[in-house]
């Protein structure tokens, strides 16, 4: 396997930084300042952090991405711009119908500064303290102003110490294992495969601790970084040189969460079904709030399991094809079906994985509190080699539609596009219990598709 050129890949892509604070600085290229903006992009080759390991973790780290509108605004030549994939060129707003971004989440209702054409350049800053990311964001804004860019929205985000998102569930620990990346030795993060004796000689296969017949093979890096072999054998389609290698595509999406609405839905469903509210919530998500998966703990949460990174993702769905332990429509089962797809199984799932690097924004809503109208949610960030094949399939075909799972056109009540008839979830039980969400609890407020160049790619902006 080709070794990863970690010095040329921007950081936070293959391995999350694990910083608790973030700022996202969004900017537009000023009219008539294309040359300066191109120079600014090239100058970022030095301050951005790469995938290369660090001996001492820095106080903060910076990364840069550019949208197709940004490429056009900085004057990237047409022969190069035209080699980018269609969905990236169209931009997120133009893909709204496919993504189910309608009603309150329709692009015309997105927040100021997060609409079509508003985001040319995005600088992500992660840091150990809020002060560190705030100071770095100010530095970036000042540099941008000198570099032909006009800073716009600065979106703050923070990861609570218990890693829980606003609905109360631990989040972000289920990530694909990638061959050649040091952290891949965790069961349950890769492709589920039948374990063979010779797999013990393979560094990219991790045995399951829960099932001796099961192993987990790390995904090939080309699923996430351009220029390397992917699960189909060859390198994924990429733009022309000099942007062809060590880059990736980024989805940046601000998602507002209706926490009070979700809590009300769970409480009402608990009354309707006679189930415990914590079980209803777990059935919707596929995990208990402590992270323990329903497939392994169908009747009660298990915080020890939830905190055990070696076991918390070590499960498959083959033994639960009817969804009696974990509903077939549960959020995590849709977002990463593992071996649950009726056709293709784990091999097919492997072509539609994403690396999530998002973080909550806004203050938590205290338990028992009524809706306070405060903006809170998730800054969703994903990296993938193909936005259309990976992010869009997960969102449009798996979360917004249930056909792949034998659920007809039913959306995921948690994060899918809930239509006028609502999203019904079969919670399991004998006789089966049902709950229907009548509106979406997660509503897009804006975002964009972006390209994250490699370091050499960034430098090349100086000469494009």
């Amino acid at each position, binding site marked *: 396997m080709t070794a990863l050129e970690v010095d040329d890949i921007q950081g936070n892509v293959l391995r999350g930084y694990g910083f608790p604070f973030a700022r996202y600085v969004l900017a537009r290229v000023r009219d008539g300042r294309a040359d300066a903006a191109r120079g600014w992009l090239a100058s970022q080759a030095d301050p951005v952090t790469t995938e290369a390991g660090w001996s001492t973790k820095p106080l903060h780290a910076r990364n840069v991405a550019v949208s197709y509108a940004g490429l056009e605004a900085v004057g990237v030549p047409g022969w190069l711009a035209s080699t980018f994939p269609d969905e990236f060129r169209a931009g997120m707003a133009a893909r709204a119908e496919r993504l189910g971004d309608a009603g309150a989440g329709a692009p015309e209702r997105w927040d100021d500064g997060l609409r079509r054409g508003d985001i040319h350049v995005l600088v992500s800053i992660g840091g150990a303290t809020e002060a560190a990311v705030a100071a770095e964001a100010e530095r970036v804004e000042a540099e941008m102003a000198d570099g032909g860019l006009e800073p716009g929205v600065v979106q703050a985000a923070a990861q609570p110490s218990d890693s829980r998102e606003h609905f109360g569930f631990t989040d972000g620990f289920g990530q694909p294992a990638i061959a050649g990346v040091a952290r891949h030795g965790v069961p349950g993060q890769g492709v589920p495969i039948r374990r063979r004796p010779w797999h013990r000689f393979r560094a990219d296969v991790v045995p399951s601790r829960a099932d001796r017949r099961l192993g987990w093979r790390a995904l090939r890096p080309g699923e996430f970084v351009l220029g390397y072999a992917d699960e189909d054998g060859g390198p994924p389609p990429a733009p022309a040189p000099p942007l062809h290698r060590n880059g990736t595509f980024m989805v940046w999406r601000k998602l507002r969460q209706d926490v009070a609405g979700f809590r009300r839905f769970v409480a009402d469903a608990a009354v*309707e079904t006679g189930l415990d509210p914590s079980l209803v919530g777990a059935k919707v998500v596929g995990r208990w709030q402590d992270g323990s998966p329903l497939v392994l703990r169908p009747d009660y949460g298990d915080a020890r399991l939830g905190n055990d990174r070696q076991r918390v993702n070590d499960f498959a769905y083959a033994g639960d094809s009817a969804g009696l332990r974990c509903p077939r429509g549960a959020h995590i089962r849709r977002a990463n079906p593992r071996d649950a797809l009726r056709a293709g199984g784990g091999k097919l799932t492997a072509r539609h994985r994403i690396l999530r690097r998002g973080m909550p924004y806004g203050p938590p809503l205290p338990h028992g509190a009524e809706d306070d109208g405060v903006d809170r949610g998730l800054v969703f960030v994903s990296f993938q080699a193909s936005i259309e094949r990976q992010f869009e399939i997960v969102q449009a075909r798996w979360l917004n539609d249930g056909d792949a799972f034998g659920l007809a056109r039913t959306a995921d009540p948690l994060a899918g596009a809930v239509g006028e008839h609502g999203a*019904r979830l*079969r919670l399991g039980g004998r006789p*089966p219990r049902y709950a229907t969400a009548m509106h979406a609890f997660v509503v897009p407020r804006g975002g964009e598709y972006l390209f994250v160049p490699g370091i050499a790619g960034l430098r090349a902006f100086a000469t494009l």
Partner: protein
Amino acid sequence: MAAATDAFVVLARVRAGEADAARAAIAERWERPPRSPFAAAGGTHLARLQVLKPPGRGSRECVLLAADVDAPLAAWLERMRAVAATALDAVLGHCAFYPGASDPAAFRRWVAANRLPVGFSVIGSPDATLADVGAALALRDELGAFAERTQRMSAAELHTTWREWRDA
């Protein structure tokens, strides 16, 4: 009993130098409208239209038109021709010997001449027309709603409600 669905594949050579124009026409006429011509024709279960280089044909580029449709195929083709003539002409007009969609007989002959035998086809619901699938989905929705509405009822209440629902 006749099959409810049929499958077909047309692979037609694109005239030299016109492949990009055919691609542009697909993007313009087939991808961007709010309603795909395939949907407008009715009875389309699954369809593909694209320009590609088939293996073994050198550098020749072809238009692939493949679909799983309600049987009989001839009726579906005629509906397509009638509702999407302009969109068809915009793409297939770049193919060799394409006569245009305005002449039904010539269109049928051209399709027949460029049709490939379907070797293996998997159709999600081979014994159901598109209308059957729609009706089944609607029934599924109704049953789901019924199950949710009645989930806390006693057996006797459920029995009564079921009979009322069934007879309604």
